[in-house]
């Protein structure tokens, strides 16, 4: 039932702001909390910490791998083990962000790779934790 392969999550969007601005929203701990975390600890250099606490016990722990100013950010992505945390271990997946200028706008491409099949047990708890949040998001909250 569970595939042995790994899967990819991809998103692309056009933002009416310049790449320098968008870049700051990924690398400045205050700005990343405008859209992702409730608190964040970022050290944007290769090998530097990338920690985003989403609140409610969900903590994304990663490490910056590559940074090309205003163009590209690569970091490892995982949830800290906690009761109810989604089953993606720190270091087990990778997020690549590419920013491309288009006039005064930015095309942002996100590619999240390396997601490994989770064990049924881990998965069950992760799902239980996230279903209500999915519900809230899907409900346009």
């Amino acid at each position, binding site marked *: 039932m*569970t595939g042995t392969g*790994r899967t*990819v*999550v991809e998103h692309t969007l056009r933002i*009416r702001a310049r790449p320098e601005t968008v870049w700051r*929203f990924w690398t400045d701990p205050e700005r990343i909390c405008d*859209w*992702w975390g409730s608190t964040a600890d970022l050290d944007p250099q290769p090998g530097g910490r990338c920690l985003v606490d989403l609140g409610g016990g969900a903590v994304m722990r990663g490490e910056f791998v590559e940074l090309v100013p205003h163009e590209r950010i690569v970091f490892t992505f995982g949830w800290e083990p906690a009761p109810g945390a*989604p089953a993606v271990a720190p270091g087990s997946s990778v997020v690549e962000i590419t920013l491309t200028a288009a006039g005064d706008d930015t095309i942002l491409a996100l590619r999240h790779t390396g997601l490994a099949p989770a064990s049924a047990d881990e998965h069950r708890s*992760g799902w239980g934790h996230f279903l209500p949040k999915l519900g809230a998001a899907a409900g346009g909250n």
Partner: protein
Amino acid sequence: MSGDGAVDGALRALADPTRRTILRLVRDRELPAGEIAGHFPAISRPAVSQHLRVLTDAGLVDVRADGNRRLYRFRDDGLRHAAAVLDEMWSDRLARLQEAAEREEWPQRARRERR
């Protein structure tokens, strides 16, 4: 990649609150259709059956026959679900990122455009 269609189907299936409630009901134990329908007194049996079909087609629940009953249970498929959860998280958060970044540049743009 293997998962795009599957993730879309899963997210569509999850977009409905009744279906999310059904998933919670069958998460830890297998339940017959009749008992599931019993949780939704305000919804007709055919409508509940339709929700169960959407969930089955999306691969989120498994169904098996037991005599004349149909038994449903949550399907453990960590890969697909982890991907669906992340896909949903990113689409939600990137929309907020877009809004925040555009708001930050908006005053300058408005000035430029006024000229």
